[in-house]
């Protein structure tokens, strides 16, 4: 048997059954796995948020004890950041980048599958501690120190499961780094002839830069959790002032990872919005090159703003001023993006199909979150806002009505390509309007209670915050339940129930991904297309 024949053979039939998913080397199948995993984590993390909102529905302690509440806020954050948002974008990258640049697959398909399969095991470790806690196997069983796991809460005072948490973070890091290497190599090495860098769709550009950020900062996170582990068990003094270390060192290392991480969770969203708005405005993207440069600028600046998360720790004045000005500088490239999207819509032949609705909601609500970020960047006023619900409102505006909304936009936009059927319009409209109203009911009042001084991460609050918190909780339940509509939309598409989608599923859609049939065949671009 010649190996070459065996190799050719492989291209002609797709594997079936369980093996197809478990042993996959196909970017589309792996992308699908990532997306379902991300959605499952979104629901799991959402469930924890429902516990938080149930407890905060009324002042006083009603349903859970404060210790359990702390575990809910911690694991909610971790599941959403590392389980829902990051894998969601990786899923989109897997599906779309090869299609958009005319590549047959990701550059390193087996490593791609490994990147995915590490994740369910990492989250098995992390989430099992929550179940142990919920079912009474010692308290606290799950991490309870907030998603930022500051020392010494996570070192000296961390629960036993902290060590498992540390190793699960290592696993997520390995997964992310391999995934990011795959994206970069695919983009640099597998572009179709003629697909020059400055012809790439912006989603590819933003992911290329995101992947660079991932490779640069995930190892730093690994360093931080390693220092935690040795401080906890081997007597090192990294975060212990008595030994000559400093708990604030943890915050520096963590946020050196954490701030680029924030952009890891939003740059791919910029790419998605930059794909959708031109389609439904029926105009090319305004200022393509400036979008690329703005993305790169945001990424570079993200390495020199980390201490704006730490204005209240007592840094020297010069350091504080540096981080304040650098942070404000980020609003320039971000502003470039927002104005470019608006300019793309200007005098366009706009229609408002579902992806466009989500995209416009993104532009407006993300800008809201961006502006509250600008307020937080001002050091003196940050002393008032720090660790209040104002911060919670800020980062939920950019992450929920920003990153998550962009993923909904992406799903409605590309579901026809993935499944071959158009997403259900009625359910989709209900999902959109219901999410849009409830997300604002949920997060907007948080600005007010935060400005009035309600601290985050507490299981109880002063009586004057009761009315707002009641409505916030109502918004939370409403937003949570609305997501079941999206589950229904996805299940219907997966079952191929719906109007059949043409190859070019949206009238104004441009790009290589719309040249292949819907659903995209198992193998695309065995031989590279030529891009003019």
């Amino acid at each position, binding site marked *: 048997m010649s*190996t070459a024949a065996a190799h050719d053979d*492989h291209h002609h039939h797709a594997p079936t059954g369980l093996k197809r998913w*478990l042993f996959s080397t196909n970017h589309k199948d792996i992308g699908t796995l990532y997306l379902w995993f991300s959605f499952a984590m979104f629901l799991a993390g959402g469930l924890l948020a429902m516990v938080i909102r149930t407890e905060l529905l009324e002042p006083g302690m009603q349903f859970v004890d404060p210790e359990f509440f702390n575990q809910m806020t911690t694991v909610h954050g971790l599941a959403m950041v590392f389980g829902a948002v990051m894998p969601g974008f990786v899923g989109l990258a897997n599906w779309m980048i090869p299609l958009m640049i005319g590549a047959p697959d990701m550059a390193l398909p087996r490593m791609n599958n490994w990147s995915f399969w590490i994740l369910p095991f990492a989250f098995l470790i992390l989430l099992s501690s929550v179940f142990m806690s919920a079912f009474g196997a010692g308290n606290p069983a799950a991490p309870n120190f907030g998603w930022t796991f500051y020392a010494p809460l996570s070192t000296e005072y961390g629960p036993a499961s902290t*060590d498992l948490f540390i190793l699960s973070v290592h696993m997520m890091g390995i997964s992310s780094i391999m995934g990011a290497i795959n994206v970069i190599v695919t983009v640099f090495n597998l572009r179709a002839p003629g697909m020059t860098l400055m012809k790439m769709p912006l989603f590819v550009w933003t992911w290329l830069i995101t992947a660079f950020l991932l490779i640069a900062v995930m190892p730093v996170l690994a360093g931080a959790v390693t220092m935690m582990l040795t401080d906890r068990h081997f007597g*090192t003094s990294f975060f212990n*002032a008595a030994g000559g270390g400093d708990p604030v060192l943890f915050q520096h290392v963590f946020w050196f990872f954490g701030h680029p991480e924030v952009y890891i969770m939003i740059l791919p969203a910029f790419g998605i919005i930059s794909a959708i708005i031109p389609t439904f405005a029926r105009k090319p993207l305004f200022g393509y090159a400036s979008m690329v440069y703005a993305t790169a600028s945001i990424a570079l600046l993200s390495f020199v703003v980390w201490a704006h998360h730490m204005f209240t720790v007592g840094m020297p004045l010069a350091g504080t001023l540096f981080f304040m000005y650098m942070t404000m500088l980020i609003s320039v490239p971000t502003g470039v993006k927002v104005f470019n999207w608006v300019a793309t819509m200007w005098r366009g032949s706009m229609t408002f199909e579902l992806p466009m609705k989500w995209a416009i909601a993104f532009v407006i609500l993300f800008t809201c979150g961006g502006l509250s970020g600008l307020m937080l960047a001002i050091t003196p006023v940050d002393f008032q806002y720090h660790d209040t619900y104002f911060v919670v409102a800020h980062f939920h505006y950019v992450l929920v009505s920003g990153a998550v909304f962009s993923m909904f936009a992406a799903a409605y936009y590309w579901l026809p390509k993935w499944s071959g059927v158009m997403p259900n319009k009625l359910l989709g409209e209900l999902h959109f309007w219901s999410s849009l109203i409830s997300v604002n009911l949920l997060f907007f009042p948080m600005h007010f209670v935060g400005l009035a001084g309600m601290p985050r991460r507490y299981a109880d609050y002063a009586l004057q915050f009761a009315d707002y918190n009641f409505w916030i909780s109502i918004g939370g339940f409403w937003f949570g339940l609305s997501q079941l509509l999206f589950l229904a939309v996805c299940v219907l598409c997966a079952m191929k129930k719906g109007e059949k989608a043409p190859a070019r599923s949206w009238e104004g859609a441009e790009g290589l991904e719309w040249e292949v049939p819907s659903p995209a065949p198992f*193998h695309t671009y065995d031989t590279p297309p030529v891009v003019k």
Partner: protein
Amino acid sequence: MATEKYYVPESSPWPLAASVGLFLTAVGGANFIQQATDPDTFQGSWGMPLFFVGLATLLFIIAIWWRDTIKESVGGLHSNQLGISYRQGMLWFIFSEVMFFGAFFGALFYTRWLIVPWLGGAGSNAMTHELLWPSFQSMWPLVRTPDGTTTQAMGAWGLPAINTAILLTSSITLTIAHHALLEGKRGRLIAFQGITVLLGIFFLGLQVEEYIHAYTEMGLRLDAGIYGSLFFMLTGFHGAHVTIGTLFLFVTLLRVIKGHFNEENNFAWEAGAWYWHFVDVVWLFLFVVVYWL
């Protein structure tokens, strides 16, 4: 070129199996550490066997995964394009390693230039010093911590200087081997790569010697305050990387002997060489900022 077919590898059970191995390693490892360092709180001793079972699974799976890849490569399945993907992937992996060391070097600079002086009252921290540890004196290396643990600083010009010479020499011998590979001179390649592997082992032996000296005679330990923490974590992670690099070069040496590489098809060999040079550069940096200055 435009009509050349892309190479997409066949599906494989190894990624999933390796994930299971990693999972067992993580669960076993966390419990192993807990049970070994704090036996009063954490009863049981199942962490250690689970950790080693996991690690063995992981390494075994990776070995057969790479065996498959090597078979495909030797069988001529790999395209030039895949070779470029591998090379780029390796360079980005090394970049991620640089950032990992960066976290610890960053911790070193922050400690040395900011934390320790501040604890000694520098800047606006006179009251911090007065209220927390008034008798603490800022110095580097920090041989007396605020809580009074004392230790000694490791000098640069004994074993560390010899180790520097060893690693520099090994980079030169490896480069000679590299040229021999590209010129197809097998004898010289095998000889100089063999010398490089031996130098790596020699380096590790001396580092073990240095650690024993530090622990038994100098009181320089992992738990001897921030200087000991940084010293052992930086040199320890570097040593771990030398170990991996030595194994890497040893495996490619065996493959050289088997005749797997030639002037064009030599990705794994060059990846091992890049890794070795990376480890060498980290050491030079480490020698200057940890031992010398």
